[in-house]
């Protein structure tokens, strides 16, 4: 037996009211409460939610705490997987990717110049995964809308977005705040051209970070809803 449209609407309104707007907690709690409603058959669903369901979840605060803790646990899992992928690049045969990255950066420095190489590697390593994820997030949003889902985002996608967004934000803070205000643009330019090993290391790191993010995205990111 399924919920009536009225019961469904009350439940959706309730879940949104307590701040559940992402796919994973929404689907899990919707199913749990809907199953309970189907079994207990309450006369007034609103009262049932307020007096039976909400207290058993520890109140509205309890529900939010569960969602928040699950989000944290998921982020932790993503970070762990990211570290695994990144460090696996230093094992055989993936070490080849690291070596090729360093050789490419070094060759590019000589052939195409420092500025071009830095901009190109940062764009490839940090910007490309960001663009792919942004496209994925939009695609997921549209898919949810098309399938009349009551959420527009996923916890998993948000955690991945944060990971990809992080170096991008750090780069912005460093380039637009720390360099001009604290260090000075000319001093920084001079420092970079004098210490080519540092530029090589940073550029190669950007490429490896980008590779890690792309692999993680391929493994975990939800581009489309699974419609059974």
């Amino acid at each position, binding site marked *: 037996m399924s919920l009536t449209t009225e019961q469904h609407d009350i439940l959706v309104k309730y879940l949104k009211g307590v701040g559940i707007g992402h796919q994973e907690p929404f689907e899990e709690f919707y*199913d749990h409460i809907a199953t309970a409603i189907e079994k207990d058959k309450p006369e007034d669903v609103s009262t049932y939610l307020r007096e039976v369901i909400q207290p058993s979840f520890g109140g509205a605060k309890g529900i939010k705490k569960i969602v928040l803790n699950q989000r944290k646990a998921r982020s932790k899992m993503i970070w762990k997987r990211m570290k695994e992928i990144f460090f696996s690049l230093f094992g055989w045969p993936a070490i080849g990717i690291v070596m090729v990255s360093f050789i490419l950066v070094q060759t590019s420095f000589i052939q195409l110049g420092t500025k071009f190489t830095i901009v190109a590697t940062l764009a490839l390593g940090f910007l490309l995964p960001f663009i792919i994820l942004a496209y994925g997030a939009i695609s997921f949003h549209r898919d949810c809308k098309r399938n009349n889902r009551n959420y527009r985002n996923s916890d998993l996608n948000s955690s991945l977005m944060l990971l990809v967004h992080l170096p991008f934000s750090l780069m912005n803070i460093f380039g637009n705040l720390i360099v001009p205000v604290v260090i000075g643009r000319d001093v920084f330019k001079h420092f970079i051209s004098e210490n080519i090993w540092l530029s090589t290391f940073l550029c190669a790191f950007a490429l490896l970070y980008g590779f890690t993010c792309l692999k993680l995205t391929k493994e975990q990111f939800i581009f489309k809803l699974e419609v059974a």
Partner: protein
Amino acid sequence: MSSSKLLKGSLATIVLKLLEENEKMYGYEITQRVKEITAGEFKITEGALYPTLHKLEAEGMLSTETQKVDNRIRKYYSLTKEGNAEAQTKVAELEEFLLNLQKLLNPKLGMG
């Protein structure tokens, strides 16, 4: 101390044990199964169950899969290989603990 406080410390073990006996279960099913087995004596609240399930999932003890049921998505939990080993260890630990508790609370029964 209420039984719910005593239950809270053993919740992970209860969940692992239930999943060891059943191939896969969803949240509501777990709460109802516990109620059914204990004839309503133990009631697992959702506020305690879900953090436990999510924690076990994050630790790699549980894996999840979703299925469409009655036009909605249902999330099923099942034991991973590590979870299976952990279930056996945790149940053995709890059994030993209960045995020792029994000896303390009722020495005559413990000797038998």
